[in-house]
Every structure is written in C-alpha cells, then in structure tokens.
C-alpha cells in the first residue's frame, strides 16, 4: 500500500458533484503536482486530504491510517497565507510548534522555530507582523510554519498563485531547494502546468468539472536541480508540456459546443468624438450590413 492512498473518492456540494472517482497513490518522498483549471475542485481535493472535508464515498488513508480530521502530520500552505495578523513572524511559527510539540523544553522550541525562519531566509524579518511583509515573504512564513510542525506530508494549495512572476520564480526555486533538503512527501495544487513540470516528480491533471476526475499521470524524468533556462532544450520537457497542455485544454473544450451562426456586422466607421457633434447628422452605413458566418462557442 502506498503512503497516501486515495481510492474512489467522491465529493459533492448539494446536487452537483465536484469530484468524482478520484484515485491516487503517492509514495513516500514523492513530489506530486495536481494541475487544473480554477473552480474545478482542486482546493476541495486538498481539503479532503487535509481532513477539513469528509468524502461522500471512498476513502483516504495516510500511512495506513484513515484520514478523518485535520492533524499536525499534514502541514497545509494556503494560497491566502492564513497568518495571524497580530502576531509576528516568530510568534506565528511558534504557535504551530507549540501545538505540534507541547512537551519540548522551551529552549528546544525556540531553536526549532529559528531554524525554520532561517531556512526560508526571513531571519532579518522575524519580529515583523504579516502586514509589514510582501506577499512573497508572507508565503515564506506560511511555508516555514507548515514545515516547522515536521509533518509527514506537505500540502500546498496554489501557494504561489497570488504572487507576481518574479517572486513566484524565486519561491519556486526555494521550494525546490527545501524539498531536496527535507525529502518530504509533497502534494501541490497549481493552475500552472509549467510550475508543476518544473517542481514535481509527477504531474496529475484534474479534468474540467463538474464531476472532475484525475487524468493520466505524467512522470517528469528531468534530472534535478532543474534550471528554468536550460530546461527549454530538453526534449522531455517539450513533450510533457505539449501533452499536458493539450490534455487540459481538450478536457475543457469537450464541455463547450461550437456552432456556426449567422451574425450581422454593420459596416460603419466610428465617429471622431473630438469634433463637435452634428445634431442632424444621420449617417447611413457605407454598405449594406455584412452577414458573417462565424464559429461561435456556446458556454
């Protein structure tokens, strides 16, 4: 049996099914990225693994034990950071350590907190509150907090989606470095196929909902450490990227129907508004309106 085992999980809210027949096995130490469109149930899936939701049917097990509620053996990093605004960087992490290791002597706890602040490079900002930090730094705190609980599995729920491209790239490298140092099992949710391919051992696409399910796994056999620039020459990278994007876009377009429709487009030039308006102007179309046949998507 694998380390994390998800079998035949189904989850619905009210009438409409969100996730249907989810099956996934993750080995210990593996980095798996789940890629999907926004709004298809990616966060629902991570909440199921975190134990924040219960599945309608099917089961999730971690290390042979059934997941029934949230616990410190599963560390979660949320997209919106979820830090306590009135606590400093140090205190936010301390709070988690306090919960996870209540029996440790205080010196050991302090050392532990400081080690993780150092790991994400925030030692100079340890006394700052979240409001004094940039988005990238807040997400580092959130990552340090999850890691400091020394969880068996790390769940990352779109950790970098709210950041700008530059900060995102820096943090991707950071996550990659920390993962290689710790060799924790990681499940990351993302909407960016490139991010998944760059970081993970295996990318699993989530098809477009409603009733989303997992598609075939794409193992990424690109050697680490990976480099964002030279990866562009790797034929494996090109192949996976093409297949993954195609799979994702196809899963969505199946839900859309395109029809050919006759539409009218009058052939009129826009007026120049910088000139004074002529009240009695009643300009006709230059030609008879054109009837166009267009391929139109129906949502």
């Amino acid at each position: 049996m694998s380390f994390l085992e998800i079998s035949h999980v189904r989850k619905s809210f009210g009438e409409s099914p969100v996730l249907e027949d989810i099956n996934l096995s993750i080995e210990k130490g593996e980095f798996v990225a789940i890629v999907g469109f926004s709004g298809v149930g990616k966060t629902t899936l991570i909440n199921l693994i975190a134990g924040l939701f219960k599945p309608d049917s099917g089961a999730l097990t971690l290390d042979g034990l059934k997941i029934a509620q949230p616990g410190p053996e599963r560390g979660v990093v949320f997209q919106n950071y979820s830090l306590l605004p009135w606590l400093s960087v140090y205190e936010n992490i301390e709070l988690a350590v306090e919960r996870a290791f209540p029996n440790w002597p205080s010196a050991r706890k302090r050392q532990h907190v400081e080690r993780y602040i150092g790991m994400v490079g925030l030692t100079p900002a340890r006394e700052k509150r979240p409001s004094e930090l940039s988005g990238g730094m807040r997400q580092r705190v959130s990552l340090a907090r999850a890691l400091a609980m020394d969880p068996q599995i790390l769940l990352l729920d779109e950790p970098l989606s709210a950041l700008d491209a530059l900060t995102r790239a820096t943090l991707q490298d950071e996550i990659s470095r920390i993962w290689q140092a710790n060799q924790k099992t990681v499940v990351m949710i993302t909407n960016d196929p490139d991010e998944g391919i760059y970081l993970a051992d295996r990318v699993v696409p989530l098809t477009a909902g409603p009733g989303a399910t997992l598609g075939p796994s794409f193992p990424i056999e690109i050697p680490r450490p990976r480099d964002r620039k030279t990866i562009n020459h790797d034929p494996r990278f090109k192949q996976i990227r093409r297949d993954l994007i195609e799979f994702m876009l196809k899963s969505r377009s199946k839900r859309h129907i395109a029809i050919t429709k006759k539409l009218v487009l009058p052939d009129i030039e826009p007026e120049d508004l910088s000139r004074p308006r002529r009240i009695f102007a009643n300009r006709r179309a230059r030609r008879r309106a054109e009837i166009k046949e267009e391929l139109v998507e129906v949502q």
Partner: protein
Amino acid sequence: MSDYCELSNLTKIYPAPQGPAVIVKDFNLRIAKGEFVTLIGHSGCGKSTVLSMLAGLSEISGGGIILAGKELDGPGPDRGMVFQSPCLLPWMTAFENVMLGVEQVFFTASREERREIVEYYLSVVGLGEAMHKKPAELSQGMKQRVGIARAFALNPKMLLLDEPFGMLDSLTRYELQQVLIELWRKNKITAFMVTHDVDEALFLSDRVVCMTNGPEAQVGEILSVPLPRPRERKAVIEHPDYYSLRERLITFLEERAHRKDIDPSPREGRGRSRWRPVLERCATRSPSSLNGERAGVRG
C-alpha cells in the same frame, strides 16, 4: 509598411520629495499598421506607465506619441483598452456594458445597427448565451471576454492591452489568448500589449520589446517572432524556434531580475497602484485593542 504609431523620446517624471523621479526615459518605438507588439518586463519597471501614456490616462512628461498622423492628447475611443481587471459596471449586463461605448462612437448609426454590433462581438467571444447576465453572474474568464468584446466593438485605431490575462489561471489564459488572436486576425487592429508572461508574448505578437528595469527605463532588446500565422497553440509550441525564443526572453527577464533585490519589500505592482500597500496596511492592521491580546498570547 509605414509607421502607424510612433513613440518618440517618451519620458515620464513623477515629482517626489527627494527630487523628480524619472520612471521612463527616452522611450522610442515605431509600430506598423496591423502589427501586434508586446512590451515585456517585470512589475514596477514602468511598462504600464508607457501604456497609460499611450492610452492618454497618464500625462506625458516629455517626448510625444503620434497615432495615425495625429499627436495624441488625452484619452479617446480611437484606442480600445483591455484592463487587467475587466472593470465592468456591476449594475449593467454584459450587453449594456459593451453598448455604453458603442452608443458613444456610433451615435449616427441606427439603434438596430448598434444592437447588431454589440451582439456580433459578444457572440464571437463566446458569450452569445450569456449576453444578458450581470458581471456578478459571470466567471472571471467570462468577464474578461466582455472586456475584449468591449474594446473591439469600438472599432478602434489601436488596441491597448494591459496584462489582459494577468488575473486568470494559466489554463483559462490559454483559452482567452486563442479568443483574442482569432478576433485580432479578423480585424487586423494594430495592437500594443503589456505583459510579463513569456508564453503569452510569443503566442500573440509579431515583435516583443523587452524593457529595461526602471528608474529611467527604456527599450532594451527587440525580438521578432517569426512564427507563422494564423497561430494555433499546438502548432506554436511544436515550432522548432519556439523554445529558443522562449529561452531568450526568460534569460533577459532573469538578468534584469538579478539587478535588483530578489524579494522587494511591499512595493510589487507599484506601476499599477501606488496606493495598494497603503490600502493593504489599512485592511490588515489589527485594531489597537488587540495589543492587549497580543501580550496575553506572549505570556
């Protein structure tokens, strides 16, 4: 092809307490009629400033812009703008939002013709069925489709796009890029886009202009994109030149990135809103009454 839009020695200076801050200096660019040019650079480098000067939303401190033989002075409907957030009026339906501009520039056309124009563009972007819904009932991707239809419906001389898909997830972004490129192919409107997404720049443009980092930002490198048109996602990423072009742009952006601090303090996205950090601080600042609680947690 002759120059259609010419930006010569364009300069933007903001007054600041420490003396004037030169954001953009001597920015020179010529755009041919029917060309799609993209400006790429990191957030805060001044690329949005160039765009808003072109849109007439930001005053020009030095130099000038000529569009179709006329010097620009202030905003106007001859330039259709697609913003990062679609900025739709929430109390109006998608149809009414597009009609708002159409009524202005086609005031001499008949009511019937105006309706046809609006219906044509909304149908082509895939909103034929959702035309009479209010923005609150539309997904983020659908709202941005309305934004695109609104800009094209004015039949502008030039299309300006300010990180048009920056708020969407990567996969929805791919779909909307396809919608945009199809519409652009039919209309051949001269387009100028600002983005930091390398794949987006390559997929859409004829030329990619790399901007150096501010202050005193200017044109760095210009890359021609020789990918054949009409473009389709799969064919583009299979093109033998695609990944070498991609690597060149990523290299340019990374080199720029290392010139400044890796993780800038909360000034990311400065170009868009200088007030964001202030607003954020107001929103997340804990009330002073929490100070007592804070001490309590500590003790």
